[in-house]
């Protein structure tokens, strides 16, 4: 049995499982007419978690085995510069609106989470771990560490935020009567980082570029703003 167990803990198994879960969830997503809660990131994560629980595989060990996949998140992030560059003329057109929305929206994202968690009786650690929930994972973990949050809780908060964002975006935008891809993309990237950005590219290149822009700006701005704001408040 040890041979089989070693195989289940190998990168080969990890990567095959994730790719398989992705293919299957992508098929379900398309067949369902793109139901937001069946988005491949959500469906794939549920399938992968289910298999890990069934086969009693430790998540931390699995995450290490799947390291090859995680590696590509870096170059994929760098690639966001290309659509950003191509949509530069649109971004220039509304630079002032984007700047104001960024500065107030990113602060709102942080404060709204802390206030709601406080009202619902969250511990101080939970509040601190939630502060960076709208920021893309690698930056969020850095922020969380510097203010005394817990990295695993922050990482989960970031992911759940992304999932809530992509599930809610269509009904919310319809409610606000917003059809403009620039607003659609920027708000989603600001509130729901990389998961939102992946979803925005499915809508249109313009929505994707504005979402990438919000993702980068929210991340870098929050990395400076959140630790400083907490430092002053204490």
């Amino acid at each position: 049995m040890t041979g089989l167990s070693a195989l289940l803990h190998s990168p080969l198994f990890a990567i095959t499982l994730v790719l398989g879960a992705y293919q299957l969830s992508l098929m379900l997503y398309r067949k369902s007419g793109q139901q937001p809660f069946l988005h491949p990131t959500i469906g794939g994560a549920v399938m992968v978690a289910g298999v890990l629980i069934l086969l009693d595989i430790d998540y931390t060990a699995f995450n290490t085995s799947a390291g090859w996949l995680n590696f590509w998140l870096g170059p994929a992030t760098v690639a966001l510069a290309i659509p950003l560059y191509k949509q530069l003329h649109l971004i220039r057109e509304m630079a002032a609106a984007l700047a104001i929305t960024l500065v107030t929206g990113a602060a709102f994202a942080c404060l709204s989470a802390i206030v709601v968690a406080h009202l619902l009786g969250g511990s101080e650690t939970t509040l601190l771990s939630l502060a960076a929930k709208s920021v893309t994972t690698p930056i969020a973990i850095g922020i969380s560490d510097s203010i005394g949050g817990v990295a695993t809780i922050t990482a989960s908060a970031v992911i759940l935020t992304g999932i809530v964002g992509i599930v809610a975006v269509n009904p919310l935008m319809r409610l606000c009567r917003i059809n403009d891809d620039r607003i659609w993309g920027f708000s989603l990237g600001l509130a729901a980082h990389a998961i939102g950005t992946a979803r925005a590219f499915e809508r249109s290149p313009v929505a994707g570029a504005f979402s990438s822009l919000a993702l980068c700006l929210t991340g870098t701005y929050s990395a400076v703003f959140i630790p400083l704001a907490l430092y002053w408040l204490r």
Partner: protein
Amino acid sequence: MKLSGLLILLCFHLAGEMVVTLSGLPIPGAVVGLLLLFTALLIRGGATRSLEQTGGTMIGLLPLLLIVPSAGVFFLGEHFSGQWPAFAGAIVAGTLLTLLFSALLMKFLAGGKQ
């Protein structure tokens, strides 16, 4: 997917990581790499075909690359169970409010220009 485009992405990622390591900035290397590539595109006036193709492929695969971190949500541990109401409530309410806030603010600011 062209290898030359992939090489450019890897080089900019590496350059970004170098900047972060040397400067100690609390920003991920990939984000610095993104900003460096963006600057290079501005100077050069556009991306090569292979870079554009590879970049498009990589961006299209983002949902796949986010599956493993997302699965971590199911493994937060038992000591955290008492925090779930506050945690989930803050995320759901906070994210909905943030989306509404930024979308409505932008709609208001963009006003007549649509």
